[in-house]
C-alpha cells in the first residue's frame, strides 16, 4: 500500500515537474484576463501583446536553454553568463571595423574561450561552480571596464562601414514573418525564432543524444556515472560550453538590439535564467527536468513581467517581486524533493 502511494505520488510529481509549469503559465494567463475583466489593466488580451511578451522574453529564453544544461548536470548555474554576453557584444562592436563576419567570429571566439575555461576549471579541476563562475564574471567585468575605459561603444563611432553596421543592427531586428494576418503590428522577429529553434535543439540534445543520456546520469548520480565509465569531466565541461554558446547568441542579440556595446549588457540574465529554469521544473539537484519545461518557465516570467508592467509597477519593485517568486519556487521545490525522500542536493 505504502509503496504504491509513494509511486503514484512520484509519477504525479514528475508530471508536475515537466508539465506543471504550463499550468502555472495558464494561471498567470487567467490572472491577466481576470485583471483586464476587472478593468485593472488594459490591452492584455491581444495577439500583439502576446507576441510582445514572447519578443520580450526571447533573449532570456535563448540564454536559459544553455544554462539549463549546467543546472541539469548538477552544477547549479553559470553565473559568468552576464559578462560573457557583455564581452561578446562589445568585442563584436569593436571588431565591426573589419566587417560583420569577422566581428561575429571574434565575439564567438572570446565567448567560447570563457566557456572552455569554465569547462576545464569546473569539469576537470572540480572547482565549486557557483564560486568559480561568480569569480569569472567579475574578472571579465573588470577586463571590459579596463579595456574600454568604462565606456559604451557604438557601431557608428567604430567604423564607417555602413554595410557592416547595417548587418549588425539589422540582423536581430530581422522580421521573419511580418504583417501577420495583414496587421502591420504583428510580426515575429529573429530572436523569437532563435529561442524556439534553440529550445527544440536543446530538448533534442537532452533527450535523444548520447551526450544527453550521459549528462542525465552525471547529473543524477555523479559518482555512479564515473563508475559507469562516463567521462564525467568532459560531460560537465560540455554543459558549460553550451551555456557559453547560448550566452554568445544572447550577447550578440542584446548588443545588436541596443546598438550599444557596454559592460552592463546582460546584467541580471544570470538570476532571471536560473529563475526560469527552476520554475520550469529543473531541480537544482540535477538530472531532472526538460528544456520544454524551461521554455514554460520563461513564459511564466514573461507573463509576470507583462502584467506587472501593465499594472504600472516600477522596474525596481519588479525585481523584488521576481526575487520573491524565485524564493517561493525554490522553497517548494526543495520541500517536495525532501518529502519524496530524494533530496540529495
Amino acid at each position, binding site marked *: 500500500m505504502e509503496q504504491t502511494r509513494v509511486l503514484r505520488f512520484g509519477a504525479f510529481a514528475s508530471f508536475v515537474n515537466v508539465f506543471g509549469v504550463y499550468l502555472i503559465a495558464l494561471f498567470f494567463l487567467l490572472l491577466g484576463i481576470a485583471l483586464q475583466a476587472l478593468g485593472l489593466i488594459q490591452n492584455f488580451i491581444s495577439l500583439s501583446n502576446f507576441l510582445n511578451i514572447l519578443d520580450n522574453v526571447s533573449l532570456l529564453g535563448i540564454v536559459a536553454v544553455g544554462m539549463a544544461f549546467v543546472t541539469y548536470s548538477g552544477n547549479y548555474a553559470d553565473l559568468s553568463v552576464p559578462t560573457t554576453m557583455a564581452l561578446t557584444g562589445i568585442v563584436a562592436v569593436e571588431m565591426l571595423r573589419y566587417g560583420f563576419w569577422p566581428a561575429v567570429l571574434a565575439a564567438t571566439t572570446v565567448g567560447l574561450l570563457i566557456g572552455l575555461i569554465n569547462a576545464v576549471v569546473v569539469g576537470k579541476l572540480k572547482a565549486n561552480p557557483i564560486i568559480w563562475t561568480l569569480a569569472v564574471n567579475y574578472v571579465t567585468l573588470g577586463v571590459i571596464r579596463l579595456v574600454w575605459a568604462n565606456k559604451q561603444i557604438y557601431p557608428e563611432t567604430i567604423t564607417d562601414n555602413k554595410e557592416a553596421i547595417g548587418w549588425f543592427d539589422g540582423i536581430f531586428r530581422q522580421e521573419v514573418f511580418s504583417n501577420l494576418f495583414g496587421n502591420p503590428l504583428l510580426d515575429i522577429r529573429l530572436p523569437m525564432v532563435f529561442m524556439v529553434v534553440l529550445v527544440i535543439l536543446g530538448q533534442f540534445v537532452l533527450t535523444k*543524444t*548520447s551526450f544527453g543520456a550521459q549528462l542525465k*546520469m552525471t547529473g543524477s*548520480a555523479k559518482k555512479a*556515472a564515473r563508475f559507469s*565509465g562516463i567521462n564525467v569531466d568532459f560531460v560537465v565541461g560540455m554543459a558549460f560550453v553550451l551555456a557559453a554558446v547560448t550566452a554568445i547568441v544572447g550577447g550578440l542579440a542584446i548588443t545588436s538590439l541596443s546598438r550599444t556595446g557596454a559592460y552592463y549588457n546582460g546584467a541580471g540574465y544570470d538570476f532571471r535564467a536560473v529563475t526560469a529554469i527552476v520554475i520550469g521544473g529543473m531541480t537544482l539537484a540535477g*538530472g531532472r527536468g526538460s528544456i520544454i519545461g524551461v521554455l514554460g518557465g520563461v513564459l511564466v516570467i514573461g507573463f509576470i513581467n507583462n502584467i506587472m508592467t501593465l499594472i504600472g509597477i516600477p522596474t525596481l519593485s519588479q525585481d523584488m517581486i521576481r526575487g520573491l517568486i524565485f524564493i517561493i519556487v525554490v522553497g517548494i521545490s526543495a520541500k517536495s524533493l525532501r518529502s519524496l525522500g530524494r533530496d540529495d542536493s
Partner: protein
Amino acid sequence: MKLALEMRSVSKRYPGTLAVDQVSLEVQAGEVHALVGENGAGKSTLMKMLAGSFDDYTGEIAINGQVVSLHTPALAKKHGVGMIYQELSLAKPISIAENLLIGRLPTKFGFLDKAKLRSETKYWLEQVGLGLNPDLPVEDISPHEAQLVEIAKVLASNPSILVMDEPTSALSREEVERLFSIIDGLKKKGMAVVYISHHLPEIDRVADRVTVMRDGKKVATKAMSETSRQEIVQMMVGTLKEETHNTAARTPGKEILRIENLSRWGFFHGLNLVGHAGEIVGICGLAGAGRSELARVLVGLDKKDAGKMLIDGREVNITSMAQALRVGIAYLTEDRKAEGLALRMTVGENALVGIIPRHSTAGVYFAKRGHSLLGRLMNELVVSPNDPGRMVGNLSGGNQQKVLLAKWMASEPRVLILDEPTRGVDIGAKMLIHDSIKKLADGGHCILLISSDLPELVGLADRVMIMRKGRFSREMPRSQCTEESVLMAAYEGGV
C-alpha cells in the same frame, strides 16, 4: 568480581532481519573482553547499541550494576561508555587540546582557561604515551598519533567501559605494542575494555576472555587460556554447511589478465596475479587488506605507484574507467547506492548506461536498440518487478544489485571484477546472482571475485588468493578451499 557491563538478552531488529538476537554479555571491571565474528555476525550492531545509536533495542543493559537506558549517544556517554572507532572523530583544523576537551572546556570567569586546558591535555596525552604540544592543530600530527589522541580523548571523558573497534588498523607494529601496554595499564586501574578485532594474534595477546558471535547470536564466551585460535575460527564459521556448488569443472582458457609487481603505496605491494578466460579467481581478505583498492587501480579509478598490468600479453596503462571499459575491464562496486546506481533513474537507464556509445549513431542515442538486450538480462536475473521503466530507488536491495550486475553483463567485459556482489542481498537474489556469475565464467569471461562471504568464495571460485595487509599471502586451489581453511588463512596469513 564486579561486573562493569552486563547485557541481558538484548535484541535489535532491522526491517527484515534480526541483527542481534537475544545476546547476553558480561564484562568484568579490569577485564579485556574480545568480541569476534564474521562480517554481519552482529558485533558492530551490538556495539552501536552500547554507543546509544538505537532507541528501540530490547533487553536490559546494566552498567556497574545499575540498569540504564542507552537510547541516545548522549545517554551512553553520561553512563560512562567510551567508544573508540576506526574512523577518527577529530576536527582537523583545531588544536589537540580543544579536540580533547571539547564540550567541557575549562573556563575562568566565563573565559577559556588556556593554562588549565594545556595542563589537562598534557596529562591525558601522557596517559597514551604522547608528548605532543597540546596547541598543535590535529592536521599537523601523523595518522598514528591522531589515533592515539582519539584514545586520549575518550579516556578524558572518564568512561567506565571502553569499547575499541579495530583500534590497530591505522597503527604500526611498535604503536600497536604501545597501545597494548596502555590497555594493560587501564586494566590494572579497573577499566573494562571491549575489544573488537579481526586479528586473532592480537586477541591472543591482549584479551582475557572472548565472545564469539555468528548470525546475530552469541555462540560462546571462553577464557582465552581455555581456547585456541582453531576453536575460535570453528565457532565463527559454525558447523559446515554442505558443499553444494562448484562441482562444474571449468577448464580455464588462455590468459587474459596479468599483473606484475603491482603496488599502490600504503595499500598494497608487489601483487602478482594471472586471470584466464573462463575462470573465477576469488580474492579473500579482511577489511583493510587492500582488496577494493586493488580493484580501483585495475580500472583506473586510482593511480598505481609501481608494477605492470597486461591484457592479452600487451601492457596497458589505465587511467580512467572509460578506458578500462575500452580494453574490456569492468568493476562492480561494493557501494551500489553511492557508486553503482542512479537511484532516481529507471532500471533501463541504469542497466544500459555503460553502453550508451554502442547504441548511438553520430551522437544520437537510440535507447530502443538496447531493449531486447535489456529484456534478456532482466529475464535471466529475474529482476522484479519486470518493468524497465521502474525507478531503481523503489526496488528492493536484491533487485537493485541485479540491475547493477545487469549493467556490467550488458557491456560484456572480458575481465569482470565483482566487489561483494551479494552484500546485503536476500537469499533468492543471491542464488540468481551466483548462477549468472557462473554462466559468465562458463561463457569465457574472466571473473575476479572479491568477497567476505566465505560460502560464496568457496562455492564459486576456481582458486582463492588470500590477501593480507596489502600482499597476496597465499594461493589456494579449489581442492584446498573450505570455509574453515580460507578463513584460517585470511586471519593467520598461512597455516
